[in-house]
Structures are given as C-alpha cells and as structure tokens.
C-alpha cells in the first residue's frame, strides 16, 4: 500500500518535472536510476555485489548505437537489441561468476567487465576513445520524432517505469522470495532443495538486461556511446548510488541515483570539478561506517519507529 502511494506520487512528479528542470538532466537521472534499480536487484535482494555492471551498461549503449547508426533501426528496436545483447552477455558472465561467492564474486565480475572494456577500447566499431558519435535519436515506431527533448523525455520516462515495474514484480514474485531466502541463508536454501546457482544466474541475467536497457536509453538521449559507460569507475558509481539510496529498498536506487547525478552535475559546472572523486569517496566511507541503510533505509526506519506497529 505504502509502496503504491509513493509510486503514484513519484509518477506524478516524473510527469511534471520536465517543465521545471532541464529535460536532458532528468533523462540522465532516469537512466541512472534504472541502472541502479537493476543493480539493486542483485545486491539488495540476492546479496551479490557485482563490481562489473558497467559492462552491461556499456554493451547496451554500444549495440544500440551501432544499430541506430549503421543498421538504421527505429529507436524501440535499437533499444531492444541493446537490451538483449546485454542480457546475453549477462548470461555468459553470470555462468562464470555465480560459481563464486562474496568478495570473489565481486572480483570475478570486475575482471570480466575489464575484459569487455578493453575489447570495446580496441574494436573499431566503438570508435575507441572518441566514442560512437552522432547516434540519431530516430523516430519512435517510425513516426514519432524523438529529436525534441520533451518527447524524448516521456519516452525515457516510460522505459524507466517499465524497468522499475519489472524489478518490483521480480522482487515480489515467488521467485523473488527465493532470492531473498538465498540472501538470508544460502545453506538453508540449498537444503530446501533449491538449485541456488540457477536462481542467482536468472537474477543476474535480468539485472544485466535491465542495465543494458539503461545504457541503450542513455545512448539515445546523449546521441553518444562512450567508454565511460563501460569503465570500472561506472561500476563503482552504481554501487555508490545504491548504497547511498539504500540497498534492498525499492526506492533507494532512485534516490541514490538522483543524488549522485545531481552532485556530479553541480560540481562539474564550477571550480569544484576536482572534488568529484573526493566527495564520492567520502560518501562511500560515511555510508559504510555510519549509514549502512542509506537514505531511504533510514527514512523507513524513522517511519517504522514513529508510525509503525
């Protein structure tokens, strides 16, 4: 009930926001929010820390960019291709990674993501350091021109809502309950007869595909796919967003993504640009030492204490 009310309020906010704020900024927030939601599905609900999710964001971006630029697909098909490609990559990486646990899982995902990063750095089709430039936004379904920022915004907003709904649906399904059981007590889940690795793998694939969806959408918004999206800094950033917002909460990743993107945007404009890394690092340290529930987690705690029963 609570979640539904909050969701309705957020949708209302999302609908009017572009009249108040710069739409491209909002689209960036939405893309990263979707990315963080996808990541949170793994970290928050299965307890797996992937340090290589940038690989999926980047893959979605590059494949969509390539499809739009060289094959001439319409945006919805381009995004579909990017999402599927990220999902396939996730299926392969997931098979390798779910065999390991905890810190090993984090390191394996990180190293696998680096493999992809270097491939994108050298493959001719990505444009290397130049990035894939001049990707057209195209016409949705062949007749809705997306070059206008407002039209594009509502398209991105719809994609975000779909991704958000999917994560929510997964978490609250019987499948999601088993994921949580794995997170809480893996040996018990095994003893109950669940093939734990298969469940982890499916969650990994869904998460990777949604991260790819975020990357695909981002490429259309900025008309550019670049190495930044595939770099391990990006993998770290999404951890930060989720941690700051509150991992394992439904709305945490959105709040975290909005906060991080806003901070970055604010800092990049002025003399403070140099401080970005320092501030991101400080947020990390503070979150880990004193603030492990994140913003939304803390708010929920306060609400529970004062109004809950």
């Amino acid at each position, binding site marked *: 009930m609570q979640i539904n009310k909050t969701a309705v309020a957020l949708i209302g906010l999302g609908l009017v926001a572009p*009249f*108040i704020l*710069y739409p*491209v*900024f909002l689209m*960036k927030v939405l893309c990263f929010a979707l990315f963080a939601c996808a990541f949170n599905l793994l970290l928050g609900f299965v307890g797996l820390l992937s340090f290589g999710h940038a690989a999926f964001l980047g893959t979605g971006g590059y494949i969509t960019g390539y499809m739009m630029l060289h094959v001439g697909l319409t945006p919805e098909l381009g995004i579909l291709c990017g999402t599927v490609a990220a999902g396939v990559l996730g299926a392969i990486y997931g098979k390798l990674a779910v065999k390991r646990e905890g810190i090993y899982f984090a390191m394996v995902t990180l190293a696998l993501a680096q493999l992809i990063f270097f491939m994108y*750095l050298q493959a001719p089709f990505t444009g*290397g*350091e*130049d*990035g894939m*430039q*001049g990707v057209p936004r195209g016409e949705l379904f062949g007749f*809705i021109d997306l070059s*206008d*920022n*407002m*039209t594009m915004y509502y398209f991105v907003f719809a994609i975000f809502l779909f991704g958000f709904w999917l994560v929510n649906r997964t978490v609250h399904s019987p499948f999601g309950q088993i994921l949580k059981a794995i997170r809480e007590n893996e040996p018990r889940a095994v003893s109950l007869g669940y093939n734990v690795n298969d469940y982890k793998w499916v969650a990994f694939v869904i998460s990777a595909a949604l991260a790819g969806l975020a990357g695909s959408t981002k490429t259309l918004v*900025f*008309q*550019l796919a*670049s190495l*930044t*999206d595939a770099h391990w800094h990006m993998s770290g950033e999404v951890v930060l967003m989720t941690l700051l917002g509150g991992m394992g909460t439904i709305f945490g990743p959105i709040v975290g993504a909005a906060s991080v993107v806003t901070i970055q945007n604010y800092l*990049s*404009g002025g003399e403070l*640009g*140099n401080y970005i890394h320092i501030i991101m690092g400080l947020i990390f340290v503070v979150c880990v030492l004193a603030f492990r529930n994140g913003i939304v987690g803390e708010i929920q705690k306060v609400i529970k204490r004062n109004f809950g029963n």
Partner: protein
Amino acid sequence: MKSLKKSLLSAAVASVFAVSGAQAAGISDDKVKIGVLADMGGVYADICGKGCVTAVEMAVEDFGGTVLGKPIEVVSADDQNKPDIGSAKAREWVESQGVDAVTGLVASSVTGAVTKVLTDNKKIALISTSASHAFTTKACSPYNAHWTYNVVALANGTVKPMVDAGKKKWFFITADYAFGHALEKVASGVIKNNGGEVVGAVRAPLGTTDFSSYVLQAQSSGADVVALANAGADFVNSLKTSAEFGLTEMVDVAGLLVFTHNAKALDPNIAGGMKLTTGFYWDMDDETRAWSKRFKERHGSIPAMGQAGAYSMTMHYLNAIKEAGTDDADTVMKVMKKNKPNDFFARNAYLRNDGRMVHDMYQVRIKKADERKNEDDIFAIEQVIPGEQAFGPMLSQCDFK
C-alpha cells in the same frame, strides 16, 4: 494532436527557460555568452585549460565587456578529455543556458562530439587547441572555426623537411584516438608522397604511463625516424622512455606536436635540437611579447599556442558580432569569413570558407641548455611557413559560402 502537444510544450519550455530560437537580428536573450570547454586538470590542462579561460576573459575585457550594448559573459567547464562529458555539457549550455559559442576545445575526441551538438543547434564552435583536421574536412560544418594549427600543418612543417633530408623509413608511436589517428594518417601521406616509407606503427592509449614496450617495438623496427604522434604528457613520457632505452641515440625521434610547456618540462639534453612546427611562439616579436607578458602576469606562465589562439578567435568573433549587429550564428560566421583577422597571433591570416583559419606557421628548434637565457627561452624560430603551404587546399564539399 502532435502539433498541439508540441506547441503547448514549447510554450511551457520557453516560459521556463527563456530559450528562444535564433533571431534574425539583435542579440538573443540580451547577452552574448561564450562557453570555454577544456580539460582543466588532466594531461592537456597546461596547453589550454584555465589558461584558455584567462585568454578568453582577457579578450572580453579588451573588447570592453559589452557588444552592441549587451553584456558578454564567459562560462567554463571541465570536459576531462571525455567526449560524453564534453558533449553533454555543450548540450546543456546551448539548450538551457543560452550559450552562443563554445571555445577552448582541446582533445579532438571531445571536439568531434561537441561540434556535432553545436551544429545541430546552429551554434558556433571556436576550436583553439584541437589538432585533428576532421573539423574542416570530413566532419566539416558551416559552424566550425578552427584556429591555431592542425595535423596537416604539423605534417607539412615537420615531417616533409625530414623526408626531404633523406630520412626515409618512419615508425609511429601514436596516441590512440581521433587526433593521433589523424596525425599518423596525414603524416604517412606526406612521407609516401615524398618517397619515404612507413615501416610500422603502434597505438598507445591516452595517458599511458609506461611507454617502454612501444619504444622497444620502435627500436626493433629498423626505422630512421621514430615519430611521436601524441601530445602533452604522453609526448613527454614517450620521449623520456625513448632516451632511457637509448632510442634517441640510435635514430631520430621526432615530436610531431610539442607545446612550449612540454618542451620546458623536458631535460634540454634530451629534447634540445629537436625541430617542430608551432602556430605561435611568445618570444617572436614585440607584439607577441607584449601580449604574452600581460598573459603571464595573470596566468603565471607563458601562453601555449592554443591559449593565444583562443584570445585571437574570441576577439575576431566579438568584432564580427559588432559588425553584423546580431549574434545569429549564420550571419556572424559570414562576417568572420569576410573580415581578415589581424593581431599579434594571426599573421597573413584569413578564415577560409571551410572554417580553417589559414595563417603563418613557424618551424622552430628546441634550444639546447647553453642557448637558453631564462626558463621561458625554449624555441628558436628557424623558418616561417606561409599559411597556404602549411594548411593545404580546401575540400570542395566543405566550401560553405
């Protein structure tokens, strides 16, 4: 339905952001706003960066701070040498903050992405420090103006004399992005057309810390000349490693793009005697010395060529607005191309229809330790290369009249 929605939306947007389309006459949103986009803290920070911001501010002040009675504003941002960050910033500037022209523009990868955004929005790109010639050839646009130098001028100025002098076999250590690729390609063309041969090339990522494996490849290639098709810190590091592995004693190592700051950072025993091409040198004559002195007082170091170029092009842009009576990009570009820039930087100069600013280039030699009178005494000018000869002909498809 669609048009109704669109008009409602655009009315709302306009009311909130005061973004208006290009106007036929007058100054849009009552000010002229110039954005300086450059690497502020990375490997190229010294060659443009905050110095470019200073140069643009100096130009605005020297111009009087207003044009046609409207204020001139300067904003700046750090692109971190990343095309995604640079183009997003440029997009935000022109779409929501009324920026009329973007200058600075260092890494060619960033400039490529930014000029696309600017051309889509019909705003002017004043390119000060990028080297790639793409912005006036295969990616040319009626809204690009490319000052200072480009890879064609570097290849004609530095490579050709060496091939003519009998250095026929070349090996490239190339920065692995748009600028390096363009420089390698153009220089290779010059080498082949003059009877030389390219025996190999390696591509090192921007910001490589250890060049030793690349230097070893160059060493085993059997080349007469190892050309460093990189810039900034990459150039400094690759030359240092070449010296460490004895490469500089075995063959000629040619820096294709060397800025005064980089030459200053190097041991004169390693770099002394190297010949290269530049678009500006502070100690050329009284005019350059006078401006450079003012610049150094404000910025703390002598100007790099792109910083001097940023001043020159900002001045030319503001003069064009004044004459045109508007900041509308198409009109201003016409005036910029019609009037010849002429200041301490731009000698025998004109802005060609493809956006290339053709002016005198200089072949210089890095001074040896015993020739230097003070720490800023770095280059000796050997020869003036006339603009036409340095920049080559214009492509017909880029002839924007």
